């Protein structure tokens, strides 16, 4: 093959690279040592417009046939430089990047080694690029429908944003009603807005929007395909209620004789019927029958709901159904779980009845909650004279979750405020490690609480006990901690303790990530495409994340991320098609021996076998370009565009330029 004219550009990235790698040495070396290199330069910032122009000019004037830029990660600037090549009329797949920043200069302090490694990486890129051939990106049509998983505030926001823009959305919610955690709250910090007042209108809109198909009491079972064309199976759990007939009058719920503790919406502090709606403003308005606890389903008797229903909407024989949908994009907004304080035995949750979890307290202070907003002890009547609020329960603790849950300080302050507001005479103690109030109006809210007379004790609570040491501790809960600002141990006897549990990833986050073929981090939160520059997309094209499923987040952040995800999807829908990397497999029909080894290798069933000709063929539309079949083909006649064996082999040779036996002998 005729000698190529490769242009090599080594970026300083200020001192990010030049500080560790001798960039000019690398450039000159490349120019002298690789025959294919026609031009080799080093430049301060290749990604700058001047840097790009440099490439464009050389392509035009020097007639470069290939370009290599040694700079940051291709995930950072591959697009940028491909653009430059295109503008100068060079096919963008004749460009290759050498990652000498993330993979080299930032990873070591050893200048000599770094420079040596840089040469290897550049040389590899040059040898590889020579083997590359021009390719055209593959256009993929975007199905305009979007699936949103999770009907909390993040999911609702995303759904409304998309729907209002005229796109169809399928909103899937596991529970009988949308609303998520926000629906359980009474007030929201720092403005003390009534949570329901601001949420329910949005819930209503989501439930009644022409462009939103709301599937409550439903779960995603399987996901196939790729950006633009996902096929999703959704299981609609049987509500035992015919939504066509039900008017949502609520008589069935009234008549239902069985009540059970509601561990979900009431966070265990209250009860619900077995035929129920989590709360009056539930969306959709239809009740569901909890078959596990329903007398009829257990004994075949009762039927009170059925007989009392004016529209005969109760359908005991209703069965789960599975819907199959095709969507172009998916937004995951699956939310969080509250840390289970029972995991910290020394805090006594579940052992002492007047210790409450934060969600229990949220329900307690909620006017619509089990105590209609009255702050009382577990007996349901006694008002506490003193309340202790314990921060960082299960957060900032290597024994549980190492991270800061971000919202606990603020909601603990909110709790303190509500205690002052409803029990003016009660003493309120907040035990904290550090008071974390970053956010608009948050610090000011803290100051307000200082004014309101909350006792702030800087010290992580060691334990909560009822073991009295003296008479004024009798029949109290004693909260023991070091007051680190004084440096002494303190025992504060109180009537009520609230444990401000942290935010955890959903217990089934791992299964969800596997279902959607994406990743989650150690803590089970979904991994964003880039922690700084793209916290909305995931590594999987067409799948976006919003809300606390990506990491602890408060309401405004969740709303913002929900809207952002929607905007990203809307953009794709508007474009109608996306250009996909032409990285696809191709089987040489002449040489294929028809052994069919590749057929079951393909995770996308993109390889068909032609009985008549006894050869296999790749359906380009389905192929995602993983290259597994390429690696598996015994006769090596499947080629993976842009990752051909020749290209990788040359890259290997190039990367080992300094150690290959030939070199060593010579």
């Amino acid at each position, binding site marked *: 093959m005729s000698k190529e004219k490769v242009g090599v550009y080594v970026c300083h990235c200020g001192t990010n690279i030049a500080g560790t790698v001798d960039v000019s040495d690398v450039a000159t070396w490349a120019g002298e040592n690789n025959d294919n290199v026609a031009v080799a330069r080093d430049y301060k910032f290749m990604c700058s417009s001047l840097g790009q122009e440099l490439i464009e000019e050389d392509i035009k004037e020097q007639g470069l046939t290939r370009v290599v830029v040694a700079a940051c990660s291709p995930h950072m600037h591959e697009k940028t430089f491909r653009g430059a090549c295109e503008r100068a009329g060079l096919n963008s797949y004749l460009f290759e990047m050498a990652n000498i920043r*993330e*993979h080299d200069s930032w990873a070591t302090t050893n200048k000599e080694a770094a420079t040596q490694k840089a040469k290897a990486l550049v040389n590899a890129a040059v040898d590889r690029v020579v083997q590359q051939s021009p390719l055209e990106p593959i256009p993929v049509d975007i199905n305009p429908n979007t699936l949103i998983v999770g009907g909390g505030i993040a999911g609702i926001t995303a759904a409304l944003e998309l729907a209002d823009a005229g796109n169809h959305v399928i909103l899937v919610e596991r529970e009988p009603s949308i609303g998520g955690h926000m629906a359980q709250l009474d007030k929201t910090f720092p403005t003390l807005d009534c949570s329901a007042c601001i949420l329910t209108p949005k819930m209503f809109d989501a439930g009644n929007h022409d462009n939103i198909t709301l599937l409550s009491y439903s779960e995603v079972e399987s996901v196939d395909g790729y950006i633009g064309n996902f096929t999703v199976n959704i299981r609609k759990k049987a509500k035992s209620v015919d939504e066509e007939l039900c008017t949502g009058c609520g008589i069935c719920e009234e008549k239902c004789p069985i009540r059970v503790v509601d561990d979900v919406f009431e966070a265990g502090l209250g009860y619900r019927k077995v035929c129920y709606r989590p709360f009056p403003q539930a969306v959709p308005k239809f009740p569901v029958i909890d078959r596990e606890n329903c007398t009829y389903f257990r004994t075949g008797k009762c039927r009170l709901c059925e007989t009392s229903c004016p529209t005969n909407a109760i359908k005991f024989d209703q069965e789960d159904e599975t819907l199959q949908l095709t969507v172009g994009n998916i937004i995951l907004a699956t939310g969080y779980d509250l840390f289970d304080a029972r995991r910290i035995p020394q805090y006594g949750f579940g052992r002492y009845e007047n210790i409450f979890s934060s969600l229990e307290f949220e329900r307690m202070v909620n006017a619509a909650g089990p105590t209609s907003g009255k702050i009382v002890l577990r007996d349901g009547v006694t008002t506490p004279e003193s309340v202790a609020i314990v921060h960082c329960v299960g957060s900032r603790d290597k024994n549980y979750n190492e991270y800061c849950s971000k919202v606990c300080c603020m909601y603990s302050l909110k709790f303190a405020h509500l205690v002052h507001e409803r029990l003016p005479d009660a003493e309120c103690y907040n035990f904290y490690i550090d008071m974390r109030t970053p956010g608009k109006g948050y610090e000011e809210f803290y100051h307000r609480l200082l004014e309101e007379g909350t006792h702030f004790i800087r010290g992580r609570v060691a334990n909560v006990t009822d073991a009295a040491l003296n008479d004024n501790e009798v029949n109290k809960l004693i909260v023991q901690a070091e007051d680190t600002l004084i440096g002494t141990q303190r025992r504060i006897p109180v009537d009520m303790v609230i444990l401000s549990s942290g935010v955890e990833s959903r217990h089934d986050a791992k299964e969800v990530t596997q279902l959607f*073929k994406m*990743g989650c981090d150690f803590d089970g939160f979904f991994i964003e495409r880039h922690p700084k520059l793209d916290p909305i997309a995931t590594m999987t094209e067409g799948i976006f994340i919003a809300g606390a499923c990506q990491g602890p987040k408060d309401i405004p952040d969740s709303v913002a991320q929900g809207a952002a995800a929607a905007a990203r999807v809307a953009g794709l829908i508007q474009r109608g098609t996306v250009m996909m990397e032409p990285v696809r497999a191709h089987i040489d029909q002449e040489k294929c021996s028809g052994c069919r080894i590749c057929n079951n290798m393909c995770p996308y069933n993109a390889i068909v076998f032609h009985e008549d000709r006894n050869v296999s063929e790749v359906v380009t539309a389905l192929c995602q370009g993983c290259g597994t079949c390429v690696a598996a083909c015994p006769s090596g006649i499947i080629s993976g565009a842009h990752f051909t064996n020749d290209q990788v082999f040359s890259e290997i*040779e190039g990367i080992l330029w300094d150690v290959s036996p030939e070199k060593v002998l010579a």
Partner: protein
Amino acid sequence: MSEQFEPVIVGFLCNWCSYRAADLAGTARIKYAPNMRSIRVMCSGRVDPQFVLKALRQGADGVLIAGCHPGECHYVNGNIKAIRRFILLKKMLRQLGVEEQRIQLVWASASEGIILASKVDEMTEQIRALGPLNWNKTVLGSGNGHHDEIAEPMVEEVLNV
């Protein structure tokens, strides 16, 4: 640079998890051995045993294959196929007198820069202890009775299964 032997390791990193893990390690300024030189592949399932062989033949002292955690593969299960091949490959290289530690597999998700970095450190140490591979002597040379013209095709043969 110190006089001690500096092994050269070729790392095949999958585009979705491990390559980004290496990116993250860099961004987080985690310092680790500069001995691993990375080659990007779309999926660890793309790592053709011939690549590994080629690298070792070309003078690499070790090869690291890195992919997404099982169940998190961007291509459903390419990494599972990778590990199957990896095991076979290890067996076969052992017969040719190549020590186990010279080819290793690691799962590193995009958020696990630290895992990738420590793996590179660990592997570098292990191979430094083993010394240079020197393929021609170890595998083709008198080392284990194989002879160039017999071994070479044999190796290709096994690897193509």
